[in-house]
Every structure is written in structure tokens, then in C-alpha cells.
């Protein structure tokens, strides 16, 4: 199946009544929950993962993808209207978006963000289709050593990029890897850290740990802060249509942002956050006197980058089976729950999943574009639900989500314990998303390591035996050495823009906690 045929097949899967409805419902639920201050996209998708398990694998993943896009848009709405973003990308979108709102152009800013998201999704889809086939063939050449080296290099890069400092990032990664090592060793059948307890012998399930670290920790933080929020502005339907000149300003910025977003999304690291910052900086360089004061391109570009990066994140997940972002890690957990292991063979063994998800994410974005204009009043009304009620609903959903996975109490206790651990880590600026990635990728890393040593009869040279390995090691070396060289030549830190927001948005998780 070539990419065009694949995409056509994907649309035929996504447009079945069941899947189409799932995309619409997911987009609406995502927006409704995402607009709530403090509810970050990562938190929402972790929370709603379990209820989708009862659906078929394709429908379940389609609804999760749509929920994610919807939540991203909902978070952007809160950033634009009230300047209360939950994750770093929305901080950037809200910089000029909220300035526009203060000038009475909130509706236009929302429309520009929706169009930017759609352009981002379109370019992301094109990129995904173009790259997936090529990389899929290349990925078949990956053996255990290449998988080990790629996973290790990716994790180290993400640890360094965590925004809270290299040591803390790597510590979080090490803790995640250690948690993933608990339980039955799949190769020898030996139980590690079981202490004779049957619950521990099976190891920690991904979902309860993720629910605790991402969902419960964020809820505890929100509850502890309980900031009084500004009232949402009133918005009439007729106020949301931009003029022709505003469209013309938004379009090129969206295209630029989408290309940046897709390319950075493919790479390991906080691609969504980085791409929105890079896009914003680019727009500021192009219009230094306008950006910061409510410029349309500074809303359209970052929003397009935000959505395109999601398609970029799907490339390593689908093609190599390696999730290099928190959201794709949660999607990965969802796939495992459905009995599907993503990787090079997914396009041949489960084309309905790969192409169906790609097409459905696009349809979900179209649905957002069509539905969000008339429903803007409804979304604003959601903000009137009292916070205590929302807290009760969300905690209950978390507990049910943990329990219903295996119908045991151990998973609920796991969520509670990791929620408290995550809360403490958040306060000391230790990035828990890296912990989640270590947890998800740990078994793959160990499998690659041990299988490689089996193949080489114990020789470590196997990790330097192919050109793929060597290129990856060089990338890591360059990544480690470059900041020192830059610091030496310019006397300036080689830090990333995300470091500037590591302290967080003040609601939900710290802003840099997006990977």
C-alpha cells in the first residue's frame, strides 16, 4: 500500500459512522475538559485513557487522538481568553492571543488559533504520510543494538532537555527506568523486587502510574493553589470571524509554524514546547514592532506548530514503536492495552490503526474547526462549574480508571502513591514526564541491551557496529558538547527557551513538564 492508497484507506476507516462519531465526541470532550484551567492536555488524555479501553482498538485510539487535539484547543482558549494556560505551548499562544482579547478581539484570536491548528494538522498529516513509508522501510533494518542505542540516546537527550537541569532530568529518567524494572523479567522469568507479593510480581501497570504522576499530582497542585481565576469575557458569535486581511496575515505564519512544529515533533525532546517557542521567535524576528502587542501571526504560527508537532511525535511512535513524548507514551500505553505493539510492522499488520489514526486526527481537527465557532458560548459556560465539583469528578474518574484496569485495589494505591511522589517532584522542579518516558521505554531498553549482548556473545562493540549506531552516538556527542562550545565562544548559556518557563504556568503542571 503506497502512502496515497494508505491515506485513502485511512479515511475510509475514519469515516465509518462509529469512528467518525468517536472523532467528533473526542474533539468535543477534549475541548470541554481542556478549557478548564489547570487541565493540561497530557493530564486529560491520561485521565480518559481507561474509559476508551472498552472500544475497539481503532475507535479507542481515534477518540484518544481527538480528545488530545480538543484539549490542546481548549487550553489555547483559556490562555487567550483568561491568560491562564495549563501547558507551555499555550503560554506562547496566549502571549499575543490575550493581548488581542484585551483589545476586544478575543473572538478573532480564537478563530485564528482554530485555523492555525487546522493548517498545522494538514501539514502534519502530509509530513506523516510522506515520511512514514520511507522510515517504515528503514526501520525494518533496525535490530536490537540499533533499538537500544536509539532509545538510550533519545532518553538522554530528553533528560537533558527537561528544562529543570540535566541532573534532575537524568535522575527522573533513572527513577522511571527503575520503576519499570519491577516485576517478572520477561527473558529469564525471575521476579525482581517482588518481595513475595503477587501484586508486585506482575510489575507496575503503566496506566495507574501515569494517572498518579500526571493526573493526581496535577490535581493536588491545583487544589493546593486554588487561585481565584479571572471571569471569562462575554463573546458573541458574530465577533469570531476575522477579516480578509487578518486571514492573509495568519496563513503564511501558520504554514511556517506547522513546518517547524512537524520537524521538531519528530525529534526526541519537548517538541511541542520548543516548536511553539521557535515559531514565536521567528514571528517576532519578522515583525519586531508588532509581536507582543497582539499580533495575529504570533497566535497563528505557534498554534500551527503546536498541532503539527503532534503528527511529528507520531512518526517515531508508529514507525519505530518508540514514544518520545508524554502524550505518545500514553497512546503507547493505550495501544498495549488493546494488544497492539506499535513498530515497523504496524503499517502492514494493522494498517487500519496507523492510517485510520492519521486520518481521524485530521477529521477531529476539522470537527473542531466546524464545531468550535458555534459552540464558543457553551465552552465559556463550562468555566462556571465550581472547582470543588470538578475536583470530585476528576478524582473519582482517576480512581475508577485505576481500579477498572485490572479490577484490583493495588492499582488504586499505586495511583495515590505516585500522585504524592509526582506532587513532591513537581515542587522541586523534577520533570515527571521524563519519569513517565523512562517507565514506558524501560522494558524496550533492557530488551535491546540484553538481546544485543546475546547476539554479540557478550561483546560491547555491537553497540558501535553499524552506521546507524555510530550516527546516533555522534548526535549524542554533538548534543552534549555543543552547549560547552557555545558557552565558551559567546559566554552565553546554550539553554533552551523552555527553561525560561520551568517555573510553570502557575496552574496544572509546570510548563516545562511537557515532553
Amino acid at each position, binding site marked *: 500500500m503506497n502512502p496515497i492508497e494508505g491515506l485513502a484507506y485511512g479515511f475510509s476507516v475514519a469515516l465509518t459512522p462509529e469512528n467518525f462519531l468517536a472523532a467528533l465526541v473526542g474533539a468535543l470532550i477534549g475541548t470541554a475538559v481542556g478549557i478548564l484551567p489547570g487541565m493540561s492536555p497530557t493530564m486529560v488524555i491520561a485521565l480518559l485513557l481507561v474509559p476508551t479501553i472498552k472500544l475497539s482498538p481503532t475507535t479507542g485510539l481515534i477518540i484518544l487522538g481527538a480528545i488530545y487535539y480538543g484539549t490542546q484547543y481548549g487550553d489555547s482558549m483559556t490562555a487567550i481568553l483568561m491568560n491562564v494556560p495549563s501547558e507551555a505551548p499555550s503560554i506562547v499562544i496566549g502571549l499575543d492571543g490575550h493581548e488581542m482579547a484585551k483589545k476586544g478581539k478575543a473572538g478573532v484570536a480564537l478563530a485564528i488559533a482554530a485555523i492555525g491548528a487546522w493548517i498545522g494538522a494538514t501539514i502534519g498529516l502530509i509530513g506523516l504520510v510522506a515520511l512514514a513509508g520511507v522510515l517504515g522501510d528503514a526501520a525494518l533494518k533496525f535490530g536490537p543494538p540499533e533499538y537500544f542505542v536509539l532509545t538510550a540516546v533519545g532518553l538522554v537527550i530528553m533528560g537533558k532537555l527537561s528544562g529543570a537541569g540535566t541532573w534532575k532530568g537524568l535522575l527522573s529518567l533513572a527513577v522511571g527506568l527503575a520503576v519499570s524494572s519491577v516485576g517478572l523479567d520477561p527473558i529469564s522469568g525471575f521476579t525482581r523486587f517482588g518481595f513475595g507479593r503477587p501484586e508486585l510480581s506482575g510489575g507496575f501497570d503503566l496506566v495507574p502510574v501515569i494517572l498518579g504522576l500526571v493526573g493526581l499530582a496535577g490535581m493536588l497542585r491545583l487544589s*493546593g493553589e486554588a487561585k481565584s481565576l479571572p471571569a471569562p469575557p462575554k463573546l458573541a458569535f458574530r465577533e469570531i470571524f476575522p477579516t480578509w486581511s487578518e486571514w492573509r496575515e495568519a496563513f503564511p505564519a501558520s504554514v511556517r509554524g506547522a513546518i517547524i512544529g512537524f520537524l521538531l515533533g519528530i525529534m526526541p525532546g519537548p517538541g511541542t514546547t520548543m516548536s511553539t517557542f521557535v515559531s514565536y521567535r521567528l514571528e517576532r524576528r519578522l515583525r519586531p514592532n508588532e509581536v507582543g502587542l497582539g499580533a495575529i501571526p504570533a497566535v497563528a504560527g505557534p498554534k500551527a506548530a503546536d498541532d503539527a508537532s503532534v503528527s511529528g511525535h507520531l512518526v517515531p511512535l508508529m514507525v519505530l514503536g518508540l514514544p518520545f513524548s508524554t502524550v505518545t507514551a500514553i497512546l503507547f500505553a493505550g495501544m498495549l492495552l488493546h494488544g497492539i505493539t506499535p513498530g515497523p510492522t504496524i503499517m502492514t499488520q494493522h494498517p487500519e490503526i496507523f492510517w485510520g489514526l492519521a486520518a481521524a486526527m485530521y477529521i477531529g481537527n476539522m470537527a473542531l474547526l466546524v464545531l468550535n465557532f458555534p459552540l464558543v458560548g457553551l465552552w465559556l459556560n463550562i468555566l462556571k462549574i465550581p472547582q*470543588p465539583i470538578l475536583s*470530585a469528578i476528576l478524582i*473519582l474518574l482517576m480512581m475508577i480508571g485505576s481500579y477498572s484496569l485490572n479490577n484490583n485495589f493495588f492499582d488504586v494505591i499505586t495511583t495515590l502513591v505516585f500522585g504524592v511522589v509526582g506532587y513532591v517532584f513537581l515542587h522541586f522542579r523534577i520533570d515527571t514526564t521524563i519519569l513517565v518516558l523512562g517507565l514506558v521505554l524501560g522494558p524496550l531498553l533492557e530488551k535491546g541491551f540484553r538481546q544485543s549482548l546475546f547476539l554479540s556473545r557478550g561483546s560491547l562493540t555491537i553497540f558501535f557496529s553499524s552506521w546507524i549506531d555510530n550516527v546516533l552516538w555522534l548526535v549524542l556527542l554533538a548534543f552534549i558538547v555543543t552547549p560547552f562550545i557555545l558557552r565558551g565562544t559567546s559566554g552565553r548559556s546554550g539553554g533552551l527557551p523552555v527553561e525560561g518557563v520551568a517555573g510553570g504556568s502557575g496552574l496544572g503542571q509546570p510548563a516545562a513538564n511537557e515532553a
Partner: protein
Amino acid sequence: MYYFPALHRGTVVLGVILTLIGAWYVSQATTFPRGTMAQPGPGVYSILLGCLIVVTAVGTSVEGGLALKGGRDVEVQWPAVDGWLRIAGLLAGAATYLLLLGQIGHLLASFAACLVIIRAQGYASWPKAVLWAAGTAAATYLVFVKVLAIPFFGNSLLG
């Protein structure tokens, strides 16, 4: 807001705690079968991981210590007393659900948990809190027990 412990001081303490945990992890891992280099057992990877925890935890602690030495500590915005009470309320609600689910079933356990959380979060009106808790419990009962058919303890209406 209370500002104890501050960021760098807390980082040092956290680093020390995780160093100890890492050392314990390594000591446990040395009891696992190690195999040979050609056929590594489950102990090899675990020992490497334990060492990674120790090294990164020591690095984190030293980094915190150096930052502390180099200048003033950074305040961590811990919640005030009422914030801690709200957090305790959330956890108490979750614990209520956990403890009651096996005894009285999902519907009543979720009602009790919601009531605890809503009140602990500072929602003033008892009648409204009861109504919201009842509505939330009923909605989750319909979705999770009736529609998604999750086998909770006691699938009947009252447990």
C-alpha cells in the same frame, strides 16, 4: 504561602534520599542472577540502573548544594494551611472510595468520596454538595457499571 523547604535545600535533601534508595536498589540487585556477559541475567541491567540512580541523585544533590553555596535559596511555593487541608481532602476522598468500594459497592462509595472532596474543597452548601455528589455517583454508575460493564464489587444498585 509557606516557603519551607526552599528549592536548593530541598533538592539536596531529595538527592540524599534518592541516593540512599539507589544504594538500596543496587544492594538488592546484586542478589539477582547476573549470568555472563554473553547471557546477561536480570541482575546486570538492575545493577546498572541502580548505579545510574546513585550517580544522578548524587549529581542532583551536589548541584543543589553548589547553588545554595553560590547565592540565596529559591522559595518553593508550598500551599498555605487551607491549601494543605484541601489536598488532604482530595486524598481523603480518594481513600474513602478505596476503603468503601469493597464494602458497599461503587454507587455509595463514589457518593461518599464525592461528598468528602466537595466539602473539603470549600463548597459551602450542604444540600447542593449532596445533590452534586449524588449526581456524580449516579452518572459514573450509569457510564462505568451499566454501559461499560466494569465488574466493580457488587454490581447491584446499592453494592
